[in-house]
């Protein structure tokens, strides 16, 4: 098979990139292994403010995230343009609340909000009485919160389907295969389990799988799979518009258009290897739900109908966008933390570079060159 561009990975980045490339007239094939794409397990939070979970678990990555904050603001705007192009993805932007249960946590949020505002994020601190007006459903232990108005949510199932339909419409070909290696000469060849795919250029949108593809090219990318857990309730008529997080503990809580509440936020799942879907951990299920019910007590009246686990990707906190040093035919597009939020924007930046509409040198901090082995 011979095409202009092969995109490895059919998640949020791969699909949006394929759409961009196809729109420019390129002949595009997306090759995806069909297993453990983070986008398939994602719960649709649009993150902008720095996630406390991440700051706690990966403090060394915080400077990179903080430096990327404006990217997150732009990423949510990019979701809006995407929605205008592909149809409703149930995007709601009513802001995200990061809750504090004591004064110490609130003080932490105050400092965090100051840092974020300096980077262009719209963030403010609300005390309990201010919270009462916009989120009367919060538990009595909540003393205050950081409200980040940039934040929101989409329905990832709808978004993924819409993007797939748009890509199909533009003639993008989707192939189910696991790409194991690349060879580069005057063209690029992607070697999969089932077949090899020849192209002029290749876009690597394989998230946690990207290092295996480029390790022979003088870089070592620290992207790795992080198995995470999620839960969903039955429908209800209550309206929880905000994306809810916590200043110290791992949680995201939000409501889909279906009326169901999705509870997640980075509780670990048990890996069963990269070729199998991770397994739900009991401790995560219990801890995640218990925390949700403490923060938003009325959800305690509902039943959990499903849980699932999927692979998130972490690297060094910043996105990786750009060509491999010495191999301009091979371009990487891996978002930093909160990959689903950043996905469409990262795809757009990578494809703009490939299409010559923008120089990759504009954002050296996202260059894969930083991982030179």
């Amino acid at each position, binding site marked *: 098979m011979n095409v202009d561009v092969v995109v490895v990975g059919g998640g949020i980045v791969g699909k949006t990139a394929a759409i961009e490339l196809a729109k420019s007239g390129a002949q595009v094939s997306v090759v995806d292994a*069909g297993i453990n794409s983070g986008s*398939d397990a994602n719960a649709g939070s649009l993150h902008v403010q720095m996630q406390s979970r991440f700051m706690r678990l990966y403090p060394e990555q915080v400077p990179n995230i903080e430096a990327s904050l404006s990217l997150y603001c732009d990423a949510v705007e990019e979701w809006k343009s995407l929605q205008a192009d592909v149809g409703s993805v149930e995007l709601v932007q009513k802001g995200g609340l990061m809750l504090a249960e004591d004064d110490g946590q609130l003080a932490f949020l105050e400092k965090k909000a100051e840092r974020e505002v300096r980077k262009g994020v719209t963030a403010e601190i609300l005390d309990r009485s201010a919270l009462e007006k916009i989120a*009367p*459903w919060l538990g009595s232990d909540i003393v205050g919160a950081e409200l980040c108005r940039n934040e929101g949510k989409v329905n990832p*199932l709808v978004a*993924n*389907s819409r993007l*797939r*339909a748009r890509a*199909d419409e533009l003639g993008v070909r*989707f192939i*189910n295969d696991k790409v194991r290696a690349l060879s580069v000469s005057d063209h690029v060849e992607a070697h999969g389990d089932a077949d090899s795919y020849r192209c002029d250029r290749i876009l690597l949108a394989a998230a946690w799988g990207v290092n295996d593809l480029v390790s022979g090219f003088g870089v070592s990318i620290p992207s790795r799979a992080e198995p995470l857990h999620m839960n969903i*309730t*039955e*429908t*209800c*008529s*209550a309206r929880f518009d905000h994306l809810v997080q916590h200043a110290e503990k791992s949680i995201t809580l939000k409501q889909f258009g*279906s*009326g169901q509440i999705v509870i997640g936020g980075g509780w670990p799942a048990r890996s069963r290897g990269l070729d199998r*879907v991770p397994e*739900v951990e*009991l*401790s995560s*299920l*219990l*801890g995640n*739900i*218990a925390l*949700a*019910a403490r923060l938003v*007590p*009325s*959800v*305690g*009246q*509902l*039943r*959990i*109908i*499903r*849980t*699932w686990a999927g692979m998130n990707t972490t690297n060094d906190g910043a996105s990786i966008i750009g060509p491999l040093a010495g191999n301009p035919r091979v371009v990487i597009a891996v978002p930093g933390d909160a990959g689903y939020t950043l996905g469409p924007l990262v795809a757009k930046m990578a494809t703009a570079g490939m299409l010559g509409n923008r120089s990759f040198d504009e954002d050296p901090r996202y260059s894969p060159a930083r991982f030179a082995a």
Partner: protein
Amino acid sequence: MSKLHFTFNDKPVEFSAGQSLAAALTEAGIIAFRQTPKGEERGLFCGMGVCQDCLLTVDGVPNTRACMTRAADGQNVKQQVAFPVLEKAPIAPVAPAACKLEPDVAIIGGGAGGLSAAIAARASGASVVVLDERKVGGGQYYKQAAGHSPLDDQQHEGAELLFLAKESGAEIIGSVEIWGAFDGPLFLAECNGAAYIIRPKTAIIATGAYERPVMVPGWTLPGVMTTGAAQTLWRSYRTLPGKRVAVCGSGPLNAQLALELAKGHAEVTILAESAPPHWCAPITALKAAMADPGLVAKGLYMLCDLKRRGVALHYRTKLQSVERRGDQLCARFRSEAGRITETDIDVLCMNAGFEPQNEILRLLGADMSFDASAGHLRCQRTHDMETSVPNIFAVGDCTGLGGAPAASIEGTIAGVAAAARVGFRGAIDLSVESRQLARHRRFQANLWKLFDTSPRRIDSASSDVTICRCEEINLSEVLGGLQTNPSHVGTLKRATRVGMGRCQGRYCGPVVARLVAKATGKPLEDASYFAPRVPIKPVSIASILAAEEALKDEC
């Protein structure tokens, strides 16, 4: 005696002690229990806690299954709206303290297999806990009577088995919904709002089967229910599902129900059997008769009795559609020769075979293989009924359809083996059981050849037929998703929402697994089905909180 009553949408409904809400409402002529997000009405369907369609709001608590909840004096019952309102200030979840159990043998399911296993394991000296999701044990075959005397030999036999199990010293706990199964084994359950944490040394899974429906336009209407649901109404609660009834699908359970309802003075307008008459397969019929002359004689007697009572038995006849006409349903049948029969009824009962309730086994990773003749997975077991997961035994229909008599014998064998595993070696000779089991399996193998329960091709059905009851997804939506990306049922689920609802894909799952297999050309196997996940059944967050509290220091 003063009358018992609850209110439904503020109107009083009388009931008899022991009746389920589903039975009491059915008796009062109320069949629409909940509204769906797309504006449809739903009522009692499976009658056994599987389909999650008979949800009511009871005393302000939404999502209460009418079939599994006992009616109580003074209850405030409301039809459930599509999007139930959450109380603004909920009562703090004061769930009772969690109950921890650590028996030698935990038996999940108190039907023929589970109770027999309990008796055998106790006889060897092991401590035994039986956990059953119904209030009264006995399972779907023995369907015990709630508050009245046994109806017939089958109920007598079940009552005796239940009595023997209790006498054996096994602890039998009802109303226990197992929602989690983890390595260890560790089981998590909910029982009347309390959390149960069970860490047995060995476990015997005896969770039985549920019914395969006939998916035609209208099969989700209130008044359309499984044969088993109608049988529970009558056998357990002495409630006729309706005055005029039609029964369809394939298999002996349909004939049994038709006869029971006819005896109970319902008018059975048609018993539609999709298979040809048994005399068209004389050798198979003879083989079944040789394996179990008693059961075959019972079957023949049943058919004669049906005829005597004027029930029209139509062979080679399938349900085409059902629709609501005023306060009745109109069911349309078509014979192989093309003859159309229409009948106006109160209730349409359907059973087109069975699906094993193998969720716990699949979650724990027990090896499965696909049985093409039954159209479902079978659990791989040793002669001792042990699965590929050490210390996890499995008996009866949850391992693949085999019938209640076989389940009983398998239970006895597994009970002895599980007790022996934890050091209780009773001097029990199982040679008779082994011979009986072989005979029952021969009977079953021939019996089902006489019927038409291998799954039907659905892709040629009407495109608007509902495939996923919960999410209200029809065939054309499923086929559309399949066309875009047929790679796996999980992909199809995310693309179309098929299988994402409360019943967790129990009805649509087997259908879409077959559709994906056909589209991809891959053989059916364990991985063809929706990935098994906790919770096995929807579980209240209140109960999760209680479990979390109890397990805080452990995990």
